[in-house]
């Protein structure tokens, strides 16, 4: 088996320097449209808050709804500013972040509440060499009993409501919920309909939201860092205002 040890050493270190230094490699993030007003020509913009005509539609992208259709991307004849970057996670309330006791050891339970697989694929990547959340003190746990942070992806279809609630209830307090991906924030193209929900917040309280369809691994890492208070929350343009919730 020594060949595997040798192979691993020969490969060298691949892990990103984030959060100490920004990651600048090409292709780590698809970017997001900025809150600018532009026009699109191809079809209806599904995330625009300003419904216009089919042909030249004015748009104000709501990045909580952005599903990366790229219809407003400069390469598809739209004109909004397109931001790179990946620090998209936003806390929903002032006390959303866990205290200092959790800053360097956090256990994480992931729940797939009807995600399309792309979100899950990105969640898998955060544990793999390029992102390696273990170095930041985050550990995946298979049981909610040991979990501090619940990472939920997907719009929460009817059949997942009870499993999600049970998982949340099984977690000891203090606990925080990260809703990752456009489905988990707004239901994306599916919800709300007769079976798919319109996001995690309808079922359990959400503390940190991260947009993207799917959110790239660095955005997920940022979301975890926001949840434990090691990174400041992003201020999301046109973020829906939410009332204060009592926290368990």
């Amino acid at each position, binding site marked *: 088996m020594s*060949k595997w040890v040798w192979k*691993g050493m020969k490969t060298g270190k*691949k892990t990103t320097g984030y959060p100490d230094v920004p990651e600048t490699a090409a292709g780590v993030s698809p970017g997001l449209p900025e809150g600018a007003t532009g026009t699109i020509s191809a079809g209806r913009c599904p995330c625009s808050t300003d419904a216009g005509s089919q042909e030249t539609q004015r748009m104000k992208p709501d990045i909580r709804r952005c599903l990366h259709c790229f219809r407003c991307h400069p390469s598809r004849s739209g004109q909004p500013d397109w931001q790179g970057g990946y620090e998209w996670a936003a806390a929903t309330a002032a006390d959303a972040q866990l205290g200092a006791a959790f800053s360097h050891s956090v256990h994480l339970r*992931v729940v797939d*509440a009807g*995600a*399309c697989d792309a979100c899950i694929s990105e969640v898998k990547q955060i544990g793999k060499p390029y992102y390696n959340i273990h170095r930041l003190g985050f550990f995946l746990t298979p049981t909610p009993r040991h979990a501090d942070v619940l990472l939920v992806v997907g719009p929460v279809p009817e059949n997942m409501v009870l499993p999600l609630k049970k998982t949340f209830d099984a977690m000891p307090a203090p606990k925080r919920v990260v809703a990752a991906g456009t489905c988990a924030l707004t239901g994306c193209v599916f919800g709300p*309909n007769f079976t798919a929900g319109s996001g995690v917040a309808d079922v359990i309280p959400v503390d940190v939201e991260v947009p993207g369809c*799917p959110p790239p691994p660095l955005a997920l890492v940022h979301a975890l860092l926001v949840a434990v208070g090691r990174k400041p929350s992003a201020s999301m343009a046109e973020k829906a205002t939410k009332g204060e919730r009592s926290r368990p």
Partner: protein
Amino acid sequence: METERHDDASAPRRDVPAAISQWAPRAVTQIRGGVPWTIIEGRRDELKDLCRRLTRELGYSFATLVVEEIRFEWHINYIFWGDEKSGFVQVALRASGAQPRIPSISVPVHAADWHERETEDLFGLVFEGHPRLGDFVLHGHRPEGATPMRSGSIDEGTVSQEKISPWRPDRIVRAPGAFLMSIGPVYSDYAESARFLLETVGEDVIRVIPRLFYKYRGLEKAAQGRDPSDVLLMAERFSGTSAIAHSLAFCQAVETICKAKVPPRARALRVFLAELERCRHHVGAITEICGSTALAVATSQAAILEEELLRLCCQHTGHRYLFGLNALGGLTIDLPDETCRHLVGGVQDILRRLLELGEMLRFSSSFLDRLEEVGAVSKKDALAYGLVGPVARASGISRDLRVDLPYADYGPDRVTFRVPFEEEGDGYARLRIFITEAVQSAQMMQRVAQTLPRGEVRCPAFSAEPGAALGWSEAPRGATFHWVRIDKDGRLARYRVTTPSFTNWHGFHLAAEDFAFQDFPIIMATFGLSNAECDR
């Protein structure tokens, strides 16, 4: 009992549509979407026999069961797929009334089993003679008799959680110490939600009862009444890891209905992107297989390659999972020749390292011990269940839509390849198929990049016309069929999606039964299926 035709796929076929007309004189054959399409008006009393003969005597595979409600009448279409000569066969049955009774075809054609269960659960149509109807897609919290797919019957009210009664499967293992082990729906580190009930008397799994559709998001219902360009976003997003394949099948169905001519460059680039997606998916599947056997270094090595492919996709197309590229009538952006060359170079470099990894795995006995002769599916079973994709090819079925019913730029005189197949049908055979197909995908990408036609990548804008058509493509996990009907307002009246994960989960229990508990996650990883794709 299977016929010789099934066992010897290389035997020359008769002109099958002509053979059908011998014993089904009402059959009509047309050319649709470039392949022969035979419609047989089915009658209740001869339906079972007809479907049995199509699969057992003429070598057709069951593709999909499409139920439509048109003008107070049920149109029930059983669609079968063959090859370039025999094309598709559509057995069309009509029924009327609120509670029509339709003979079940799942005894002669076992591949239709889950299709009938789904239809019964969502439409409330009863299939006479089916042994296991009832709770399937909609779980216990909806009363039996709820039929959300019927028009106008959507229950928009919130569902009361108090009504949930535990679902109890029929247990068949009766032995001292027998028990039922439940896994899921929330289990493992980041597994997709699904539940498996394993009947056992100790170490070995005797029976596997999958409980799926936890992720049922009502894709087919949500698409109804929507504009095709909106539904395209859904087709791309219901299974994010095979976005190109599913959006391609949807686009091709709409393009067939509207008689849109896709420019040659777009057809070639669609092949290019589909192969890029297949390559990335297969590397991801190999990562999962290494992970399931707890071979840490190999898992990391494969994950590095997967991430590099994702970055490569994002760098050159804008999105890591290739969203937002397929459009009705072509592609949204052109990939310049130089970009294609960069992509080919990047993929080939990654493939070279994948093959190195494959060689190391081939000589790691601890890894092979977990895969060889584990989770075997026989060719006979694979045919009976109509399995598709790498799983079927690992069990000796050399079938692939890209060769059998070519679409886009696939075909003998354009992009073609030899369909790989293995005989053993075990986990290691499936791993070898994943590696071989990833290499073939890179070769096809190179060939397309070298011979890219010039010109537009999108046909002029067209308006949606009423009509119905089937779109198909070979997704990374196997054959997918999208039936689209557009109404007179240019909106979707029916969208029926049959995915390779749905087809293959049906046969998953064949592989997992009679193996030890610790083999279960490995067998699951070698199948490489997605619940998002299955549940829709």
